């Protein structure tokens, strides 16, 4: 295994709201290798998207990245000055978002928006960039690229818009593409097409993808590595095979049980009791303990550390680590 592409260590991102300090990401660590589909899963509001945004340093007022480090090609992205970071963002690390409807600028046509990144990063001439944009539109399997380039976002369907987003983000052949729930807003058939497209591009340009989703089916099918997050922390991580076959952390086990599988006739769907604790004043010790069946005294008092129980399989729970 050669050097990892991106290593995140103890990342902390807080939001300073009038009600109090929201600790969206409170000490997240994970590593992404080259040419790999790394999945980040968890309930909505557990800080998955904030982690992604922190990696590309797209956190704005009232949020702030307060701690930890993100090592990418030997450089800590959090220490980089803005103009250095700007060279990486979009060129080396790109990102696509969940709501295709609102993620494209309504006043520019698709061709222009796709050609913008190459113009800025490789200072191509407009003509060249436009030709390249048309090529890219073809690459993401959109019919009649010539006409599509001139059309505006509001005339395109959800799937088409997501494809133009992808075309836009791969225009500079990034090494890492972060996809923040790319298919959640789309219907199932289009979902599959988009995922095939993403994996096809990954294979052809040896780019690694960080897939953020709460859809475990997708992770099982497409993912290589996976990390499970709960209330701002990573509670379990490892290869998809290990984590899905022998989930160690009670939360992961609970999640896996919730997926209705095949034709099994079940009278009642399992669910994890209780709701996500408020991130502003999270419970002491292990944050899952209010909802954990096996919660012990220790879990309540002491916060468990991430430990590597098995090879390439880490978990943060007193039960497993002993």
């Amino acid at each position, binding site marked *: 295994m050669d050097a990892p592409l991106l290593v995140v260590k103890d990342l902390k991102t807080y939001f300073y709201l009038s009600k109090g300090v929201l600790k969206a990401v409170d000490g997240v660590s994970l590593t992404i290798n080259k040419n790999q589909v790394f999945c980040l899963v968890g309930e909505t509001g557990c800080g998955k998207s904030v982690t992604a945004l922190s990696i590309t340093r797209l956190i704005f007022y009232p949020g702030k990245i307060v701690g930890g480090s993100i090592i990418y090609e030997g450089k800590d992205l959090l220490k980089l000055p803005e103009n250095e970071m*700007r060279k990486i963002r979009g060129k080396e690390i790109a990102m696509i978002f969940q709501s295709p409807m609102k993620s494209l600028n309504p006043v520019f046509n698709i061709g222009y928006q796709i050609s*913008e990144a190459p113009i800025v990063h490789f200072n191509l001439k407009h003509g060249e960039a436009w030709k390249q944009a048309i090529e890219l539109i073809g690459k993401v399997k959109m019919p009649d690229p010539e006409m599509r380039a001139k059309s505006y976002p509001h005339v395109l369907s959800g799937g088409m818009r997501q494809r133009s987003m992808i075309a836009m983000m791969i225009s500079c052949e990034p090494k890492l593409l972060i996809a923040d729930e790319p298919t959640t807003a789309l219907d199932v058939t289009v979902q599959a097409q988009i995922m095939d497209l993403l994996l096809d591009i990954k294979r052809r340009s040896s780019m690694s993808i960080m897939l953020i989703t709460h859809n475990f089916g997708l992770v099982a099918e497409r993912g290589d590595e996976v990390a499970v997050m709960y209330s701002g922390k990573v509670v379990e991580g490892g290869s998809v095979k290990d984590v899905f076959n022998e989930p160690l952390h009670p939360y992961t086990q609970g999640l896996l049980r919730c997926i209705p599988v095949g034709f099994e006739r079940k009278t009642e769907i399992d669910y994890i009791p209780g709701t996500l604790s408020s991130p502003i004043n999270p419970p002491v010790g292990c944050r899952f303990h209010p909802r954990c069946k096996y919660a012990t005294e220790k879990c309540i008092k002491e916060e468990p550390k991430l430990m590597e129980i098995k090879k390439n399989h880490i978990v943060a729970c007193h039960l497993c680590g002993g």
Partner: protein
Amino acid sequence: MSALLRYSVKRVLIGIPVILFVSLFIFLLMQMLPGDPIKLIAGERVTPERIEELRRSWGLDQPVYIQYFYWLSHVMTGDFGYSYVTRLPVSLLIWSRLPYTIQLTFTALVLSYVFGIPIGVVAALKRGTAVDNITIGVATFFYSMPTYWLGLILMLTFGLYLRWFPISGSSSLESMVLPLLTLTLPYVAMSARIVRTEMLEVLTEDYVRTAWAKGLPSRRVILRHALRNALIPLTVMFFLDLPWIIGGAVIVESIFAWPGMGSLLYKSILKQDYPVVQALVLVITILTVVCNILGDIVSAFLDPRIRVEKEA
């Protein structure tokens, strides 16, 4: 573009009845004003018979609707009739004051957007910091300042005591500085506040985040992506405020003796000089209808979503 042409022609056709209706309304409002122009204007040493003679010579003894159609038919040929007070052709009065109104009030409106937009953008970008609070605090202060009070203070300090600028009149360019300042300051404050809200809303949009994610430099993201979208509602507002330039500076024009159309309208209403009031009201109404159409066309030009809607 032909679709836009068709659309604006349709709007003009709708505009015409509006203009007619407003001119009739103002005509009736004038008739309702108690007292009649002849008695108002005739000086002290006039006998009742003389007043009757003058009324007949000016055709004021005709029934109202004949006066209205008489006036309307003349307006079609561009003759706005004669002012009761000055007996001068109304078109002359308006044309002689138009350059001064454009010079002062129009520039004030343009300047207020030229300065308002950058201040609003900076305040939006530096949201929550001291810069934001100070700029918006000062803007609100000037926004709360009545124009006549601001005018008096500026005139005394810069005109009389410091003598940096001429106190009043319209002879030189410097004499425009103080009235322009009095008009622009509160207006810059207003547009800055609105631009700030506009920008705050746009900056939270997803496509701006996409632009950041593409690694574009901040200047490009803010100006090309964010501001470009924020400008759409602002241009519409600019065109809606445009007719304000005709009568908006009534008090400033009287304090600084500036020969704009505002003071003419104000004096004509006072003296119940119907022809001048009706002519100015007509100009304001036509300008409003035209500006509405222009506003739509420009916003369609700026925002493809509306353009499609218009073509459909």
